[in-house]
């Protein structure tokens, strides 16, 4: 058997090409039905996301180039897309390379943002579509499950998804670093913009129990408060609420400092020195940089966040190197698992063995037959071989069935009975 993977990703193809090649979920199922014919393309799976379109197929030995050709043709959607439009952007991986590619994609090593967690869910979804369509079989089932296992190992054994690489998640991560947990903490949003809303949602998901929203005009504050289940507070009483908030996210369009050093000092005193965490995502800045010099007050402006994020990305890249080692060792394990199930050699060896026995008997008993013409000699041999094949046929088809059912135990039993090596 051979595995063939043809696809494009964010590195190989621009968005104009990817968006034309992408499949909706319905198109995925329909496409798989037309692509997988059970003869040349025996199994198939399509992963289609905004960053990639990958067609994974399984085919018989010796059908590699036919299958590749078929998949490339398939992507043209019955000639709706000219091949010249996308062919140069395609990559084709076969066997181990295809396995490696799938493992890397599923483990988020091939993602635009390394370690982002969504891709695993996308591959899961693609797999369940193929499963429903009935286009996966013993090889792809095994392969995809193995890929999920690799992804899990990579996630738990490396820090690939550890450090935040987006501003809204950064707020959660730093918050957890300062306070032991975000549960029971209070967040104050100053400004009701989209960015503030985004960060606030992350904070609420992470356990922040109370959210206050202050905005210069009250209507957007009330709307956002309503959406988040938060309290809208008066902008002119900001200094009163400052002391209650552990995490303050500032994102107004003001061109002056909304939070000044005396305001922050006063709040800190009221808080009896409990630390507070200010995030200033507005440009120009809304929090006086001098606030950051106060003890137990931590201020991050947009540049600080960006630079932490880029260092986190570098950290993820270092962790990705460790992940590649895991992928390598898993490829070897997958090969072994597959080889153990590969019936081709077993059936070949068994048939050969039975035929050899028949020929040996013929040679031993040949002289009892007396002189024969060459035609007669061939006829005797053909008779023997067809008898052997007739008798062994039900046996071999039974073996094939246990192989299709991925029943490693029975396959091993067959091998033991006939004394065959793997």
């Amino acid at each position: 058997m051979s595995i063939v993977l043809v696809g494009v990703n964010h590195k190989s193809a621009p968005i104009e090409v990817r968006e034309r090649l992408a499949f909706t979920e319905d198109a995925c199922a329909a496409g798989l039905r037309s692509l997988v014919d059970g003869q040349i393309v025996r199994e198939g799976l399509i992963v289609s996301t905004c960053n990639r379109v990958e067609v994974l197929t399984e085919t018989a030995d010796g059908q590699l180039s036919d299958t590749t050709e078929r998949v490339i043709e398939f992507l043209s959607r019955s000639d709706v897309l000219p091949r010249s439009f996308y062919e140069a952007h395609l990559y084709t991986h076969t066997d181990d390379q295809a396995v490696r590619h799938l493992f890397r994609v599923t483990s988020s090593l091939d993602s635009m943002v390394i370690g982002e967690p969504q891709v695993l869910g996308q591959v899961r979804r693609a797999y369940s579509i193929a499963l429903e369509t009935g286009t996966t079989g013993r090889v792809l089932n095994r392969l995809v499950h193995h890929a999920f296992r690799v992804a899990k190992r990579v996630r738990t054994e490396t820090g690939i998804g550890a450090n935040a690489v987006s501003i809204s998640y950064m707020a959660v991560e730093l918050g957890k670093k300062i306070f032991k947990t975000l549960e029971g903490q209070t967040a104050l949003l100053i400004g009701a913009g989209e960015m503030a809303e985004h960060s606030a949602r992350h904070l609420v998901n992470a356990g922040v129990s109370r959210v206050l929203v202050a905005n210069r005009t009250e209507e957007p504050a009330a709307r956002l408060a309503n959406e988040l289940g938060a309290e809208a507070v008066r902008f002119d009483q900001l200094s009163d609420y400052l002391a209650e908030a552990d995490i303050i996210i500032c994102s107004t369009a003001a061109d002056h400092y909304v939070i000044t050093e005396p305001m922050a000092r006063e709040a800190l005193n009221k808080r009896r020195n409990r630390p507070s965490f200010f995030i200033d995502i507005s440009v120009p800045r809304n929090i006086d940089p001098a606030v950051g010099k106060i003890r137990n007050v931590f201020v991050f402006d947009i540049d600080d966040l960006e630079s932490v994020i880029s260092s986190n990305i570098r950290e993820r890249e270092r962790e990705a190197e460790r992940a590649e080692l895991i992928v390598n060792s898993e490829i070897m394990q997958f090969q072994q698992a597959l080889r153990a199930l590969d019936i081709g050699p077993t059936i070949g060896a068994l048939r050969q063995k039975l035929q050899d026995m028949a020929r040996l008997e013929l040679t031993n008993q040949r002289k009892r037959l007396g002189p024969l013409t060459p035609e007669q000699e061939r006829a005797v041999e053909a008779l023997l071989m067809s008898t052997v094949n007739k008798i062994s046929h039900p046996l071999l088809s039974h073996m094939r069935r246990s192989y299709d059912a991925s029943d490693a135990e029975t396959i091993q039993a067959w091998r033991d009975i006939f004394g065959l090596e793997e």
Partner: protein
Amino acid sequence: MRSLLLGVLAAYVVAAIHAVLAFINKRRALQRVSEWAMLTGFVLHTAAIVADWAIYGHYPLFYLRETLSFLAWTLIASYALVLYRYRARPLGSFTLPLVSVLIFIAIITRPEPSGSAEASSMSTTWLFPVHTTLLLFAYAAFFVVFVASIMYLLQERELKLKKFSAIFHRLPSLTIVNEIATSSAAIGLTLLTVGIATGMLWSSSRDGRIWHNDPKEIFAALTWLLYLSLILYRSTASWRGRMAAWMGVAGFALVLFTFFGARLMGGYHVFG
């Protein structure tokens, strides 16, 4: 009980190596190995201390060798408590190597003549063993304060500079290390107070004086004052952050000096 102590050393070294590796690699499996090795070491260690007591006939906290081993034992006990209460695993990467070194020194220290009259005479009253045991536990608590303070300072500095090293993501949060430092300091101060008091009682029953002006006493008094002010300072505001952390570091320097330095300067508190 040297051979038993060799087993203890082996277990602690295994625990230390795995704790450090777990700290670097963030692998749960390594941490588990470390904790099991530590538990094994602790059981053997306890057995070794009890055996020492039975064989030599005096409370095994008198000679330098015994003191180092006992100190290591209190450090492990304190780390186990912090682990249980706060799950602050990174503390092990600091504690376990130190403990291994202490046990190693205890092993290579020349064994004292057995059945020393001085050691036995000290054990006749319960006050002396209580005095020394409490103080060693106080020192272990102050070590925890010290490590937690270092963790606080490292992280506070990185948060202010907004540059995070690899170690940053592996340490417990500021609030947790602050809590660990505060509660350990309170426990340590209590133990130190009772320890000093029992020492005074014992001394007055021995020669009628409670204060000999010897270096160890003076430094212990300074240590006591420093941790008292640390506690007061922390309790006036619920959180004092960096300043309190620096006091935790300075206090431990004083503890080290009380423990080792005073021995070099001679005086009433030098035995064995």
